């Protein structure tokens, strides 16, 4: 049963990724670029979902991880003249350290306290970027366009911001995240994480060290958010505090819940729908925040399991 379910879900996700791959040859310029951005942001949401969806811990400070990866990569390129790959690895390593340190402290709390602790740590990180502005360029942020080298594929040079490079790198990132997410869910570790979400004390009684499993989920979630941030810096060449603000911590909650927390593919749908919703609404009224707020409220009342969560419950029982 589990094997069949794994095959089904890999086929399902493979289909969606294949569709995304084909789309790049069809989409008009604007949507081509939008989908690239959605895929990077969706990767962030998938990473967020590691924590919320599978361990039930809701964080209100994930922008810290995203921004940590982004700033480490960006400042690494700016000051240390790292290569793009070097910057990505540096971003990943830095976020790994940050999320490990953070997890050691924050995981002593749970529920609402965890939420507020993450909010506070996130806010501290944001303020520290402002405080060390001489080094981080403060609120203005900085552009990497001039500092980023070119990418060489088969002896041809490309800019990282080249639309095709951007689209396919984003797709690779998303593919990797979905694959890793699925495999973990079908692994013993994934089972235990879900057990923690469903009943923490019972899992503890069964002899599992819940703390370490939670720490694993948090570090994985944090580091992957950081890599998404580093990738964002490389592909979109701007690093700024807007990515460390509380709004950027709220976004993945919205995307994940809308798509369906605890489903692997849900965050992608949530991100895509929200992105286009804001895009379309902002063309009609400048008050798209009103719509975002209304969606949040209506969703949590009528649709608490999100799109994929509801689908899973009703029809697609095999969906991871």
């Amino acid at each position: 049963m589990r094997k069949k379910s794994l095959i089904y879900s890999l086929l399902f996700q493979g289909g969606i990724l294949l569709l995304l791959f084909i789309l790049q040859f069809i989409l008009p310029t604007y949507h081509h670029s939008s989908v690239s951005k959605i895929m990077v942001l969706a990767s962030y949401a998938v990473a967020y979902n590691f924590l919320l969806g599978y361990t039930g811990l809701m964080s209100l400070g994930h922008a810290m991880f995203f921004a940590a990866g982004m700033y480490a990569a960006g400042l690494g390129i700016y000051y240390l003249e790292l290569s793009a790959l070097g910057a990505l690895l540096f971003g990943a390593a830095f976020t790994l350290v940050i999320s490990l340190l953070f997890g050691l402290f924050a995981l002593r709390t749970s529920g609402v306290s965890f939420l507020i602790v993450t909010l506070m740590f996130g806010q501290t990180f944001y303020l520290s970027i402002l405080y060390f502005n001489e080094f981080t360029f403060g609120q203005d942020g900085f552009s990497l366009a001039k500092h980023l080298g070119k990418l060489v594929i088969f002896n041809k040079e490309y800019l990282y911001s080249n639309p095709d490079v951007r689209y396919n790198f984003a797709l690779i990132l998303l593919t990797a995240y979905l694959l890793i997410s699925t495999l973990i869910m079908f692994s013993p570790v994934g089972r235990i994480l879900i057990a923690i979400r469903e009943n923490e004390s019972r899992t503890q009684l069964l002899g599992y060290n819940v703390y370490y499993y939670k720490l694993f989920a948090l570090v994985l979630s944090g580091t992957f958010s950081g890599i998404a941030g580093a990738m964002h810096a490389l592909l979109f060449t701007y690093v700024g505090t807007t990515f460390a603000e509380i709004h950027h911590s709220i976004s993945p909650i919205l995307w994940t819940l809308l798509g369906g927390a605890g489903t692997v593919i849900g965050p992608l749908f949530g991100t895509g729908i929200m992105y286009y919703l804001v895009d379309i609404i902002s063309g009609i009224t400048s008050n798209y925040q009103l719509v975002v707020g209304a969606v949040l409220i209506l969703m949590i009342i009528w649709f608490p399991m999100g799109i994929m969560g509801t689908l899973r419950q009703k029809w697609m029982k095999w969906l991871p």
Partner: protein
Amino acid sequence: MSSWINENGPLLFLALLDGTVTAFVLALIALGLSLVFGVMRIVNIAHGEFFMLGAVFSWFAFDLTDDPLWGFLLALVLAPALVGGIAVFSDRFILRKIKYHPESTIVATIGLLYVIQSLTLIVFGPEARAVEAPLYFRIQFPWFGYSGYKLIVAGMSALGLLGVWLLMIRSKLGLYMRATQQDLEIAKTYGVPTKKIYAAVFALGGGLAALAGVLVVPIRQADHLMGLEPLLLSFIVVIIGGLGSIRGTIVAAFIIGISDGIISVFYEPTLAKMLATLFVAMVLVLKPSGLYGEEVA
């Protein structure tokens, strides 16, 4: 030592004075958040927006009456009532529907925050609008002057705090609230109308924030983005004070108000805010019940 006092005495005095005023207002806002948490076990992210609405309604009252004193009195009555109404409405049609589930409530109140902010932007506009103080005078100290109205604000906030305290220990509502806070199920069995109590507490929490908004608006202005800062500060206060504890909230408000004043004067203000948030996170981590108050979980 004495030369240090000569040099820094005025600074210290001002930090204490300013810190005290901040502390009283902060206590009023944070008390609303704390009551809601204590009785309903939920965190209201839109709490700062209730504060903002208080300030905005106050401007409308001022604009309507065109008189600082009458406008202020009108706002003092009307703003908490209107905001309380909005809170009751939100409780009935949002929070009750999601059964006060802690995480869902956070998402729903984030939604509420966006909705309130956007609607205010549409109706009130993007600018900061000034409201004249009902009573205005300047107090001259040997080293500097200070706004007399600020002291009035502190005094009225203290009255507000006292009022809530009396309500809690003297009235039937207070009794019910305390009963619900201690044990929801037992309270229900004893016939406490918990649904009504929840609505009343949410309204009271919102009303206190709005009252603070009315009091503060003459010393700053009303604008649609002013809610976030007091929200974060109230979180800090409520956490340090222990979620749900009145005494803790007031003590914590003084700790935060005065230490923020002193650190900002003697060191860097951004650093002060950084340290405060980090400190709060560490308090929660190391002593989850806060400095005062009972165990939360």
